[in-house]
């Protein structure tokens, strides 16, 4: 198992390497040098010499690639004034809560090495601790506490690529988590219900609708949602319910402040009004996929022998469905979801550019339009790393949940 993970990681790194090489070559061969485009931007005149030296822009492309690669993996020294103590001194209450949770999560990890606790709350905490560790690790990398790499400076004048990307990634996480939650909490119950009421009107309707949604491009879903739920609804009701652009209203900070640095109810409402439409449009296709898959998997389980046994010994229908059928029927879904996250990233690129969401996808589109290659390379590798990680996690989960699968 361990050897398998290591091997997959090595393949993943090779994939990312090939990816960076292909994208770099494409940009290099596309007529002109990055410097030509840079000269058009009057703001960048002063840094051209600096960038030429940093990226070796006057050298042949393969040398440029190796210079880029060397820079990309070179850590930058953390400046003295941004030392740990200074940063901790500036932390808000939210960050302290996060750090406390982080320490708790690490404490849990250590404790679990020695003690085996079977309590339910403990299991729940284990799941949460993973998420908390991920978030705090993300925050620490973002604010350059631990380390940061020399990813260069944007050719569009957006400042250091490292800061731009991690700023945008937080926004994409917000959108992605909302979409994933929607897809899971609507798609899976829908599939289960369809399986229970097989061949009913609702089942037929659901199957047809999910087939149609599955064949609809995501940009059409997004644009249609904007038209119907934002523009048309506002015309009918006279009140703005959903917003079509941005993450918050411009007057967000003037709204009533919340307690302990957390957003207040009115602020939360504003966030939801902005989040709803893009999240739905990303979630719709996944939702259709999950419900179809869940229906098929549920039906397969419901026709199995052990379920007939459960029925025969007189268990209540609810117990049969929830405890016996659902648990086994959820196993294939886990793999599907982790593989589907790669698709969601693609969907997020399109959705963010439709809804003006300041995430990684929109950053990528903007960088591509300007052929801003430090940003393009960094974003492509970040997305590629996400896809590779998700594929590995899917394979591992598949084995963990289904003991018949063996790794060799």
């Amino acid at each position, binding site marked *: 198992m361990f050897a398998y993970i290591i091997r997959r990681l090595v393949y993943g790194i090779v994939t990312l390497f090939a990816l960076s090489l292909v*994208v770099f070559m494409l940009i290099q061969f596309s007529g002109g040098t990055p410097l030509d485009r840079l000269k058009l931007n009057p703001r960048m005149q002063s840094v051209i010499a600096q960038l030429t030296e940093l990226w070796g822009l006057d050298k042949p492309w393969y040398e440029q690639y190796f210079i880029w690669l060397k820079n990309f993996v070179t850590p930058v020294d953390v400046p003295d004034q941004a030392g740990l103590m200074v940063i901790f001194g500036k932390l808000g209450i939210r960050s302290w809560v996060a750090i406390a949770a982080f320490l708790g999560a690490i404490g849990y990890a250590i404790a679990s090495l020695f003690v085996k606790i079977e309590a339910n709350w403990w299991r729940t905490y284990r799941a949460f601790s993973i998420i908390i560790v991920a978030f705090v690790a993300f925050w620490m990398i973002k604010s350059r506490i631990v380390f940061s790499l020399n990813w260069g400076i944007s050719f569009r004048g957006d400042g250091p690529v490292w800061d731009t990307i991690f700023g945008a990634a937080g926004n994409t996480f917000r959108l992605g988590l909302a979409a994933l939650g929607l897809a899971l909490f609507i798609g899976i119950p829908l599939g289960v219900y369809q399986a229970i009421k097989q061949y009913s009107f609702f089942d037929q309707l659901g199957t047809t609708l999910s087939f149609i949604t599955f064949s609809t491009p995501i940009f059409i879903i997004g644009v249609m949602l904007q038209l119907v739920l934002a523009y048309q609804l506002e015309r009918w009701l006279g009140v703005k319910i959903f917003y079509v652009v941005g993450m918050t209203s411009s007057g967000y900070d003037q709204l009533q402040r919340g307690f302990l640095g957390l957003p207040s109810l009115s602020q939360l409402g504003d966030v939801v009004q902005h989040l709803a439409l893009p999240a739905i449009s990303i979630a719709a296709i996944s939702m259709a996929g999950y419900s179809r898959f869940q229906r098929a998997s549920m039906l397969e389980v419901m026709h199995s022998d052990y379920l007939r046994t459960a029925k025969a010994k007189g268990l209540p229908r609810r117990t049969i469905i929830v405890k016996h059928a659902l648990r086994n029927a959820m196993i294939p879904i886990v793999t599907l979801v982790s593989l589907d996250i790669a698709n969601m990233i693609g969907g997020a690129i399109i959705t963010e550019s439709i809804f003006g969401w300041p995430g990684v996808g929109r950053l990528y589109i903007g960088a591509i339009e300007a052929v801003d290659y430090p940003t393009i390379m960094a974003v492509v590798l970040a997305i590629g790393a996400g896809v590779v990680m998700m594929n590995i996690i899917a394979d591992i989960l598949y084995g963990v949940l289904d003991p018949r699968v063996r790794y060799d």
Partner: protein
Amino acid sequence: MTDRGPSDELVLDSAEGISAEPITQWDLFVTRLRRHRLATIAFLYMLFIAYVAMMAPLFTCEKNDTFCGSGPIEMSAITTGLMVVIAVGAGYLAYRSFRSNLRGAGVAIAFVAIVSALFLVSSWGWIDLPHINHYADQLPGDDGRLLIRIEPRGSIPMGTDDLGRDVLARVIHGGRASLAVGIVVGGLVALLGTVVGSLAGYYPGVVDQSLMRFTDLILGLPLLPVAIVVGRVLPELRILPGFLKQGAWGIAVLLGALLWGGLARIVRAEFLSLREKEFVEAARAAGANDRRIIFRHILPNAISPIIVQTTLIVGTAIIIEAALSFLGFGVRPPIPTWGGMASGGAAIAPRGDWWELVFSAGALISTVLAINFMGDGLRDALDPTQTIERK
């Protein structure tokens, strides 16, 4: 369903009597496909779309076009009618040979190949015409004003867009990009996936390992970001021949090169299991060489998943091409595509001008839906374990 044809003889109980003519795999396939009502409709719909897209210059006229000016209606009506006769005749011949015997399958495939080739040749022309502007017939209108953003009405059934171009004409022309992408990607994926998958599945060891690692590499690439980058730089790439830079061809080749990984895995799995079967062993014992075993014994048995997977990939490819065009990195604006039109329509739709968006999106969704239904029907029809019972 009065004309069920002789292929229904196959449901005869074999204990009662002997059916009049031999029943081939193709008969079973066609019978099953016809039973799948939606798939049949989808198949006909796709034929219609392909025909309209192929003959687009005949259905739509450009202003100041000499061909159109010299009696456009008669000319295009005659040519169109001729084409319809040829297409229907060829289709009927193919249909009859489909039902008669296995050799007919060859004729049918040849027919499809001819249609595809015709389509490719006829699409070739518009690569050199980057500025097709299909204006509505009555530009400017009777009152002397430009026909910009006209609502759908009698002579302009789908309205006009921001620049006064006829939406119907552009929807018809827009199908060409989607279908070109579909056909090229389907062909490339079927070819690459089958070759790589069968080599990897038939020759274990070094060949298998190296090919599958390469496949893993391709499958690991994030599809949309790479496609966007390629779409952006495609017109500027110095190393490419001219025809790949504009229009849908470069996008199609790109998508074909990125999408074959899944099919290769499936074909390899089929080959791995079929290689160990008794009939292959028998062929080997009879002295058949590798080429004969692969092409005569294993590949025909592995053809079903190849057909189904390729069909589904075509749908995916059309969606991705449309998404690229929507974002502005696919086929560039003067050339009409459904994705590009949806983008233009979305810009004017908030003002209440819904038609460009709705018609282009409708064409796109219905086409992809039809392809997916076809895939569904083919999967059911090609599955030999399915029993046929009289309904």
